């Protein structure tokens, strides 16, 4: 089975090659079901529980700062499970009836786990694994089985069926090249652990992984989710080479992630994050975002029977903004309708949702929906709030939106509500009419933010959800770049700042083009931040401008990509960002 490729799910980026080593936390089995004297069994159980409690306490104390909050919560809950009076009463009863401590304990644990598995909410079902995990901890003590085989000295690719929270907390990261699991998904403990430690991981690889023998050489590609079992010499060399590039890029990006993105000649570009949840907001701060350039608010509205009221929205915005430490935040008002319908705002069927009633077109039909959202955003009192309207096509629309906004603001002011100190109003530019007419829009806004995904699909008349034509909607296309330049020129002439918040902003290859076109702010998925910052640091502003000028005179997106690739200064590992 040389070079056999096994598909799995990518769980943590990066690539590694190494010998397979099976992690067996060796599920403990109970053999002796009948106990000795109940007095003896009770004492054995008490001691095993006390030792397990001390183990968990030590683990919590030692790893408090290393663990993700959700993992810490699991250990703390497990600590309480050890002393659960209902469980203990049930176990005592079995011991009294003649069972061994281990048989009584296992039976009690399995009964609770079965009850949890029977609950409808998958989140509760998943907690059964935590109960079994703490049960195993006590059983190991009772039976004198050590927790886990020691990892070999030489780093290995760790294979496992799946990993429990206890397993993941005890693996020594210096000896683990990569992780691959038979079961599990992208949110399993193995995946969370691997991402936190920055080691490549593939999960859910299935039974094909189960047959891999100890010591077999494996390639684990955490970007694609592919495993290669017993790679050929060429495959192994290729993977090693990619690993070196990845390691160099990671070292360079990680060291300077928190530093601003400045070109070699000192031009600074603001780097912000696109955020749609509290998780994202935390990741953005950790990965070096200077602000949030796009806070999506759809998550508040989707999958529910009624619209969220003002108080609920206020509470959610406050929690989210609280994680951002005063950094500027662009909040986009609801961008739903069309392809993202809301059950409480029925729309007649639309043959062409992307060209139909969506975003502010929906808000114009239901102004109260927008009014409530604006009130909640302003009432946060967060210092640097920027409100942004999506899908503006005409000047008349932005005038109407501005009017509605002023009405809401004045209403709150009259009521004595404390408003954000540094408040700005902006619009997305994703419809070509807004890009072409940007100078006519400029008097009505403080900033423009270009949504390149939609701008590309509208400029090239290619539905990006239709696989037959999606490839045409390429934001690298010179037509899209020219539209971006028009917005930057009109914005700057009127003293407005211009950002890009589409996927193009998160492409390292696009960074010099956007900087060269004069874009002031790039907003992207948090994970893209280190690489984009590193890309910007390779160029001077003069070089980027000349590159952008050349790109604007090309014929196709692929020609633009080739141009940037050919012109990019080579990276020497270790010198990047220096």
């Amino acid at each position, binding site marked *: 089975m040389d070079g056999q490729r096994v598909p799995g799910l990518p769980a943590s980026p990066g690539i590694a090659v190494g010998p397979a080593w099976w992690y067996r936390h060796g599920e403990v089995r109970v053999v002796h079901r009948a106990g000795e004297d109940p007095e003896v069994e009770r004492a054995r159980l008490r001691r095993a529980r006390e030792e397990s409690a001390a183990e968990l306490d030590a683990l919590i104390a030692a790893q408090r700062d290393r663990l993700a909050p*959700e993992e810490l*919560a*699991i250990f*703390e*809950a497990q600590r*309480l*499970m050890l002393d*659960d*009076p*209902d*469980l203990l009463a049930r176990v005592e009863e079995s011991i009294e009836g003649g069972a061994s401590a281990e048989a009584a304990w296992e039976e009690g644990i399995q009964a*609770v786990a079965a*009850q*949890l598995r029977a*609950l*409808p*909410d998958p*989140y*509760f079902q998943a*907690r059964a694994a935590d*109960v079994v995990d703490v049960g195993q901890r006590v059983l190991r003590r009772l039976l004198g089985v050590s927790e886990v085989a020691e990892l070999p000295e030489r780093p290995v690719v760790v294979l496992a069926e799946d990993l429990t929270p206890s397993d993941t907390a005890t693996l020594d990261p210096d000896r683990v090249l990569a992780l691959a699991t038979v079961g599990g998904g992208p949110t399993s403990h193995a995946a969370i652990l691997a991402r936190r430690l920055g080691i490549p991981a593939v999960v859910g690889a299935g039974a094909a992984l189960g047959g891999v023998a100890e010591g077999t050489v494996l390639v684990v590609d955490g970007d694609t989710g592919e495993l290669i079992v017993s790679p050929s010499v060429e495959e192994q060399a290729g993977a090693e080479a990619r690993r070196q590039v990845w390691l160099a890029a990671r070292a360079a990006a990680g060291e300077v992630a928190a530093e601003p993105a400045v070109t070699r000649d000192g031009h600074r570009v603001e780097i912000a994050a696109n955020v749609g949840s509290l998780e994202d907001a935390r990741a953005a701060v950790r990965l070096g975002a200077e602000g949030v350039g796009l806070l999506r608010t759809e998550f508040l509205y989707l999958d529910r029977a009624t619209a969220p009221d003002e108080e609920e929205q206020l*509470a*959610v915005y406050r*929690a989210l903004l609280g994680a951002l430490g005063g950094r500027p935040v662009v909040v986009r008002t609801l961008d739903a309708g069309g392809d993202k319908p809301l059950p409480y705002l029925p729309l007649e069927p639309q043959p062409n949702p992307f060209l139909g009633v969506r975003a502010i077109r929906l808000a114009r039909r239901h102004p109260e929906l927008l009014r409530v959202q604006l009130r909640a955003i302003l009432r946060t009192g967060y210092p640097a709030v920027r409100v942004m309207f999506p899908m503006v096509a005409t000047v008349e629309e932005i005038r109407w939106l501005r009017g509605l906004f002023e009405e809401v603001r004045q209403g709150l002011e009259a009521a004595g509500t404390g408003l954000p100190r540094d408040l700005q109003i902006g619009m997305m530019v994703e419809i070509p009419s807004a890009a072409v007419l940007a100078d006519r829009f400029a008097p009505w806004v403080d900033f423009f933010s270009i949504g390149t995904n939609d701008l590309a699909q509208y400029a090239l008349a290619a539905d990006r959800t239709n696989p037959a034509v999606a490839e045409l909607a390429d934001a690298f296309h010179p037509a899209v770049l020219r539209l971006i330049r028009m917005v930057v020129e009109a914005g700057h002439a009127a003293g407005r700042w211009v950002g890009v918040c589409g996927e193009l902003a998160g492409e390292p290859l696009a960074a010099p083009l956007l900087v060269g076109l004069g874009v002031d702010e790039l907003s992207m998925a948090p994970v893209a931040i280190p690489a984009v910052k590193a890309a910007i640091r390779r160029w001077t502003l003069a070089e980027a401008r000349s590159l952008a000028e050349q790109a604007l005179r090309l014929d196709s997106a692929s020609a633009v990509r080739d141009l940037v690739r050919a012109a990019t200064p080579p990276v020497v590992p270790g010198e990047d960002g220096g």
Partner: protein
Amino acid sequence: MEMQKVTVTLTNRVGLHARPAALFVQTAARFRSNVTVRSLTRGTPPVNAKAILSVMTLGAEQGHELELVAEGPDESEAIAALKELIESRFGEE
């Protein structure tokens, strides 16, 4: 001896497991009174509010209604503390 009873709605996002369940049980355990909790939404029998596994098996999700009953020397304080914990969304949001 009287008995204290109250009905509350769970408003925190994740429901009664992990950290909220731990906080709930630790709070109940501070009092000498017997405290039970049952889910009106799921129609469960009352369980010991000081036992984390029993509390988790209520499967109490966001929006579920819980009935708390306390009986003992500090029953009013126990009910007040648990009600406040739930209404503060366990300080999580």
